[in-house]
């Protein structure tokens, strides 16, 4: 509904259009101002104008209140969304971390088994290989859970035990290799030493052992590379020599049982690598989910900030509009008083 009312204030026409919002809330109670002429005479334009302005003022206040409440509801929705996104992000990050640990363990197992399987001939090497794998897993478990550190109340213990387990695993791995090697002992020892260093480097580098751990991992990695290179040279030299060739032939003469065990070792290593790859895929998906949830949380946070500002602006706008209405009504009230005084003066004037 809209209506046009022509009134007169200060000798100028006033055009007023009351919108739908104002009409809808016309019956709403006013804030403080009295209604001077609720039963205004049909011909009293200024009184009617005042009444309409007052209703419009009330409508403005109501509309502002409604908007603020709506924004508050939206903000609550965004707050819930942000809370959920943060929770989901945390869950996804935890799951990704778990899968990452699985992948690392599988990776280390694959490296250890592969190192032993390369020179595998059964016998004493079997036990050592199993011990190496077990120690690797223990090192990872301790590195991730810090159980011993928590039990003893000293995180350093956990760090050094992880490091010690990693090195012990490497030694077992190397021992398994040496035990299985019957020819070109020097080259094989170097080869196994290199692999062991790689295993230890992998373990130490994958676990949170601080600066010392990083340094140890780096040293072990370099050591692995150097010994691996030396092993390659040693193998080349040994294969060039006749004596070494004979020894190598002997070494190659694996029994069928040893070959079967070696094949099992290779299959186990491949299986562990496949598990590592699969866990990499799963972990990355959860990691990506975590990033997505973080983005959702950020978006909800931005919307909340925007709604906060919007609420502030609505409140400011309502205040400004209300004061504007008040000024206009004061002016109109003054004009009405002047008109009344003029009428009184005119009626009391002697002719």
């Amino acid at each position, binding site marked *: 509904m809209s209506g046009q009312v022509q009134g007169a204030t200060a000798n100028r026409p006033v055009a007023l259009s009351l919108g739908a919002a104002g009409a809808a809330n016309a019956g709403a109670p006013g804030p403080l101002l009295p209604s001077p002429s609720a039963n205004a005479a049909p011909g009293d334009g200024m009184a009617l104008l005042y009444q309409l302005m007052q209703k419009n003022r009330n409508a403005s206040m109501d509309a502002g209140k409604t908007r603020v409440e709506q924004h508050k509801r939206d903000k609550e929705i965004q707050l819930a969304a942000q809370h959920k996104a943060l929770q989901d992000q945390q869950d996804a990050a935890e799951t990704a971390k778990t899968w990452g640990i699985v992948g690392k363990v599988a990776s280390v197992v694959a490296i250890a088994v592969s190192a032993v399987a390369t020179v595998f001939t059964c016998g004493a090497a079997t036990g050592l290989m199993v011990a190496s794998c077990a120690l690797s897993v223990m090192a990872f478990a301790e590195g991730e859970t810090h159980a011993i550190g928590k039990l003893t109340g000293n995180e350093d213990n956990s760090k050094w035990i992880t490091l010690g387990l990693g090195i012990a695993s490497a030694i077992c791995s190397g021992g398994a290799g040496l035990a299985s090697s019957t020819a070109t002992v020097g080259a094989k020892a170097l080869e196994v030493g290199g692999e062991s260093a790689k295993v230890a480097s992998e373990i130490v580098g994958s676990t949170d052992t601080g600066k010392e751990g990083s340094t140890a991992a780096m040293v072990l990695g370099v050591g692995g590379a150097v010994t691996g290179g030396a092993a390659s040279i040693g193998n080349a030299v040994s294969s060039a020599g006749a004596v070494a060739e004979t020894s190598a032939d002997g070494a190659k003469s694996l029994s069928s049982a040893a070959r079967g065990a070696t094949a099992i070792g290779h299959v186990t290593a491949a299986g562990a690598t496949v598990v590592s790859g699969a866990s990499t895929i799963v972990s990355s998906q959860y990691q990506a989910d975590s990033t997505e949830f973080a983005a959702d949380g950020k978006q909800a946070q931005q919307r909340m900030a925007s709604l906060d500002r919007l609420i502030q602006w609505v409140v400011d*706008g309502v205040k400004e509009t209300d004061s504007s209405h008040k*000024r206009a009504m004061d002016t109109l009230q003054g004009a009405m008083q002047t008109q009344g005084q003029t009428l009184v003066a005119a009626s009391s004037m002697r002719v």
Partner: protein
Amino acid sequence: MGDLTVGGTNGASGLYVEGTGTGAEGNVAESTPLLSAANELLLSGDPGAAIAALGIQTGREQKHAAQVQRRDAEALEASEQNAQIEALRDKATLQRVQGAVDGAMTIGGAALQLGSDLSSLRSKGLNDAASDVDKSVDKSTSAMNTQASHAEATCLRTEGNHAQGTANWLKAGHELNDGLGKVGDGLFKGAITDKETDATVHEQRATRARHAVDDAMGNNDDAKKLLDKALDFYKEYTGAKNGAVSAAIHRA
């Protein structure tokens, strides 16, 4: 006073009152009645009215400029925030692809490695068998048997060499797979880092835009104060003038 229009439907919020300032949510629409009235005052020849009109005009222009500035800054902020979220989502997508490619390469590498190892093992077995045959040849006395054994050993060695060749090819494939995996991994990690950087840059730009919005709000408040002062001045001026006229009439 000028024309006064109280709009229930004007403005975005339905709270906008033309001639009195912005709506509840600060829409930029401006009315002309007050400006035309100010122009009339400016040209009225009354110095007080002219000063008030100038103040009103300046305030209105300042307010309008602040509102435009705020609107632009808000649009920029929203745009930068959207870009930040988009960059984060792109990063997530890259993480997914990187993980899938990395895992697939690892699994493929494991298959190639296994194939290489088993082929190599088979080759060794065949060569060992050939050596066994050769050793048995030394003990044999029959020439026919010797020839047959040599042929068998040769066949075994040929097959062994073939298996070793296959193992070598598979090993090469494994190494190539590893190399490609590392290259791909590096590229993906670089792209992910780029997206992270993009997100950070957009966040910083959004923050700057937010500061610009705050500045514009400050300018808007200043303009409102200027308008209020101009109106107050005119009110006082008019009151004093009317008082002087009344006093002159009474004296007369």
